[in-house]
């Protein structure tokens, strides 16, 4: 490649479309499928109607969501298309109405289920990123942009809420659903820990496997106070025999020795016994039946939630969880035997970036939950007063709108993070560009975190080595390199796995490996 070609490429990286491209791709993916995914997760809104005798239960089924392009509702009731410049000048929000299919369904107990009312109704307004697919200026030529008072050089990639332009800060988080092994100290002793941030549908659970100083393994995960014996948990998940447990962890003779120590100290021998033992831990002082119910619920709900997948049997999921815990145990032992080093948390392979679309998805999820709670309340109220139940009279679109706008306007995001949205730096053009390509580490700036602030070799080609603020934020606020490419989640995970299975990868949960023809040679 000669110098001319290289110049061509680098120029391409500086073109207007490229500068905020990561924001557009992420937000468009959110509009295109993320919103529908969130609605499908929710699927129904249950109500307490039907708890009384002689009353038929009522629930609401959620269907397709649809977002149009930004519009403004004037005081006289007319509705018009809204362009970004008008939103800035009039101090209004650049937001588009969101519609959703909803059906109120009654019955199921004595009568047959029937649809009481079904319509597509406006559920609220979604702030729209300037320059995204649903933006009114998408696809405009420079002349057209100038005609409506827009700057053709403006990169877009931000939102307009109450007239102020706000960027959503890309945040750099530790990669979820990965085993990270590290050493820790407890009561003065060095212990080995394997950690996983298990994440599924906005729920995040930290699972720890610790090797205590007497060589025994303990697991801790949310809803269980303290920690629970590793072998007990594995048995509760359905991996029962000593042999199987040992071989699932490792074939290495030294690790096998460690594992045998653990098995000798095991409190229970059977799956039933293990679940009972777990029950006494999660619901101590309660009835036996409740303990069992609770133990099963905790296993399915709070332990390694990322291993759940649509279309995979509950039993398979449990076994997968057991195998996963065995991998974590192996990581602990290997670290103890110095077969491997502790994982580097600052390595960029262990980082994931949350861009505007991911942040909006979190926001939309909580906003939809809030709306669902309001719909439930309104339905129960209407039913109590013997009113006709209809979709349009139980949805208050303000609820969702406020929940979406307020965090963007203030920066106080769901989950207690603040400063997520910032006023676009309009000091000069370069300021805007730099601001749109900035990313932030969630680590506290008041603590040293020397390693996190250091330039890491894996940032090469991804993060600019020199652009970072001086002072407390040094090394925690970073900027993208010019030629950085951000890869995205795949749309169809099942499809990807099927493809992998077809290429010969075996043992993917939920996918029957296609019978492999032995290579004839």
């Amino acid at each position, binding site marked *: 490649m000669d110098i001319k070609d290289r110049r061509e490429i680098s120029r391409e990286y500086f073109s207007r479309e490229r500068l905020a491209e990561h924001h557009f791709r992420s937000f468009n993916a959110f509009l295109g499928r993320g919103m529908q995914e969130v609605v499908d997760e929710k699927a129904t809104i249950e109500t307490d109607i039907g708890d009384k005798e002689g009353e038929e239960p009522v629930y609401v089924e959620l269907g397709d969501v649809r977002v149009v392009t930004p519009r403004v*509702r*004037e*005081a*006289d*009731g*007319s*509705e*018009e298309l809204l362009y970004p410049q008008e939103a800035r000048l009039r101090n209004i929000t650049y937001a588009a109405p969101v519609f959703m299919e909803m059906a109120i369904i009654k019955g199921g107990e004595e009568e047959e289920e029937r649809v009481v009312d079904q319509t597509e109704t406006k559920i609220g307004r979604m702030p729209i990123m300037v320059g995204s697919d649903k933006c009114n200026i998408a696809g405009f030529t420079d002349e057209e942009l100038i005609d409506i008072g827009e700057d053709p050089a403006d990169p877009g990639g931000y939102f307009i809420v109450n007239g102020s332009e706000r960027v959503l800060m890309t945040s750099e988080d530790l990669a979820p659903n990965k085993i990270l092994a590290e050493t820790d100290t407890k009561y003065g002793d060095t212990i080995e820990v394997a950690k996983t941030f298990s994440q599924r549908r906005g729920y995040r659970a930290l699972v720890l496997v610790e090797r205590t100083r007497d060589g025994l393994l303990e697991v801790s995960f949310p809803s269980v*106070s303290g920690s629970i014996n590793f072998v007990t948990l594995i048995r509760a998940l359905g991996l029962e025999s000593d042999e199987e447990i040992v071989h699932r962890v490792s074939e290495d003779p030294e690790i096998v020795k460690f594992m045998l120590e653990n098995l000798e100290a095991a409190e229970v021998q059977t799956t039933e016994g293990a679940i009972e033992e777990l029950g006494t831990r999660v619901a101590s002082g309660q009835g036996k039946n409740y303990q069992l119910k609770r133990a099963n619920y905790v296993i399915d709900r709070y332990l390694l939630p990322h291993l759940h997948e649509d279309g995979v049997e509950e039993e398979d999921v449990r076994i997968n969880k057991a195998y996963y815990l065995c991998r974590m145990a192996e990581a602990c032992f290997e670290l103890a035997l110095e077969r491997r080093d502790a994982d580097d948390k600052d390595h960029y392979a262990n980082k994931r970036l949350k861009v505007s679309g991911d942040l909006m998805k979190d926001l939309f999820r909580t906003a939809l939950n809030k709306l669902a709670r309001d719909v439930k309340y*309104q339905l129960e*109220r*209407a039913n109590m*007063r013997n*009113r*006709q139940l209809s979709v*349009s*009279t139980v*949805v*208050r*679109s*303000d609820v969702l709108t406020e929940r979406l706008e307020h965090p963007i306007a*203030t920066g106080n995001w769901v989950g207690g*993070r*603040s*400063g997520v949205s910032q006023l676009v730096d309009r000091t000069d053009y370069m300021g805007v560009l730099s601001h749109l390509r900035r990313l932030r580490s969630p680590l*506290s*700036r*008041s603590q040293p975190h020397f390693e996190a602030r250091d330039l890491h070799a894996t940032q090469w080609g991804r993060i600019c080595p020199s652009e970072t603020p001086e002072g407390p934020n040094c090394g925690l606020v970073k900027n993208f390199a010019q030629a950085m490419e951000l890869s995205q989640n795949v749309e169809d995970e099942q499809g990807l796995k099927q493809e992998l299975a077809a290429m010969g990868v075996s043992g993917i949960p939920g996918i029957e490996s296609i019978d492999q023809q032995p290579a004839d040679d």
Partner: protein
Amino acid sequence: MSTTVTACPECEGRLRSDDSETVCASCGLVVAEDNIDHGPEWRSFADDDTNPERTGAPLTRSRHDRGLSTEIGRSTRLKGRKRRRMARLRRQHNRTKIGSKAERNQVYGFTEIRRLVSALGLSDHIRDRSCVLFESAQDEDLLRGRSLEGFAAATVYATCRTAEVSRTVDEVVGEARASKAELSAAYDALNRELGLPTGPIDPAEYLARFASDLDLPKELEGRARELVQRARDGGHVDGRNPAGVAAGCLYTAATEREYPLTQQAAADAADVTPVTLRATYHALSEDA
């Protein structure tokens, strides 16, 4: 808030307020200055240990307690017995928020008003005034024997009329949980007992909304506005359904400019029959 003056004391012009002062838009008189900022004066940052904000949300008339009540929050740090105790306290605390049956009705009425206002896309100003009107109806004991939903809908309808952003009865009923009969029973009571400052509705108030529903160009709407004025001068407005007159003027404007708009479409937008619309159309064409 709606308790302060709403028009200029000198010239009765519209008032416009920003963060610091309230100014008459027509004569420039400064009606009020050094307003109290009801918002928080500090914001908290992620790293701060304590929250320096001393104020909550601003007062609002759209809540039965004006948004002053406190709430017992939830914390994940509390465990076991203490957590259960807080849950019981929270329940008792929430019960104390509503003192009487009348207050409970008010909570329900206000919720319905807020829902209606959001469904009809009206401003917060209308919301607050509707709630105040609902409160005065309660004070006058008008609700006895009439439905809460009807009153909620009627207050919204009445406030829209007095604020010159009229909605038709059918538009309000379409979103409300009340029936048309309930709304008119409540509205009649309000009008009779409280003496609402409402005159006949100006058909021009409907024009913008119908025009945008029908996707008509701006020029047509402007022309229709002139036609409404002409109809009023010709005496064709009095005693006629204002929505029908508005639709008639839009239709007349469209035929003048040869814009494709059927009588049926225009009538549907205004929720009237084409016959009603034609009355205005014929009256206007005869005058011309």
